[in-house]
């Protein structure tokens, strides 16, 4: 996968390849700084922050597929956690 001046690749003993969708989902969903008090998006009643915390590299897509399968219709809940849990705090998480 190429981008402006930056290419992310994989390298194994067999050779190089493009980074997989699974790699990308794992990184963006499972790592990074967490801000408490942020709006929580839920898929089928499961808060994404918990999906992100609990899924593992081999099951990111599976988890998303299962969530998608379980819901007949996509639903969104937007919760302002800031209202329920003042004052807002952030947390550096990995």
């Amino acid at each position: 996968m190429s981008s402006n001046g930056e290419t992310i690749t994989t390298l194994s003993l067999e050779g190089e390849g493009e980074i997989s969708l699974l790699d990308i989902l794992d990184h963006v969903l499972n790592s990074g700084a967490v801000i408490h008090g942020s709006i929580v998006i839920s898929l089928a009643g499961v808060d994404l922050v918990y999906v992100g915390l609990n899924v593992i590299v081999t099951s990111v897509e599976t988890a998303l597929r299962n969530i998608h399968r379980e819901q007949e219709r996509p639903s969104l809940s937007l919760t302002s956690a800031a209202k329920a849990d003042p004052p807002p705090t952030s947390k550096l998480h990995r």
Partner: protein
Amino acid sequence: MPVLLYCATQPNPEVNVATGVSDAAVRSREMLGVRVYWSEIDDPQSLADAESLKKAALEFHRVLREILAVTTPIPFRFPTLLESAAVLEQHLTPEQELYRDALARVDGAVQYEIIGTWADEQQTDLATPVSGREYLKRRQEALGRVAAVEGKLKTVTADTVREWRGREQNKKHRWFALVPRVERERFIASLRTAGASEGVRLRLSGPWPPSEFVAPRGSRG
């Protein structure tokens, strides 16, 4: 309007990224000694199904990559949404020192990830109970294999890595290397010279934003 946070970087340089998630403009502002990047999201409901979420995650990743090409970002976990840009500083204030410390720690570096997979470990039947002694024996063997590979990785990459971290996950071991930008080519070249290790497959990916190095060493946040 709700905002989706991408990352925090050092105040300079400012990176201009044309569009982000849902084709929204990517904005940035210096606050509390760091620069924060975000997009206003008209309709957060557009992220509320698996396919849209996947598409948005890829767009999020693209923005981070464009920023990573210029400077080192600390990403926010996707999707981090706040009520509006007006409350950004309020949310970042409690941990401002941690952000600044983390940015100083990863400054000028990128993250590479190496996943080690052991063929016989993948075939282990977890459903069959084993004695405590057998479990400990297997555990000891697994730790020994990880230590052997880790020793080899650290030896061959030597002075090209600023810091190593690692963890076990799902019968695999993941190593993370914080590599100064100027050492990237030497780092990859040194890994190529390492040769194969019997029974283990190593897969390298990167460069990534150094999210594994955001928390201080020994902290699990």
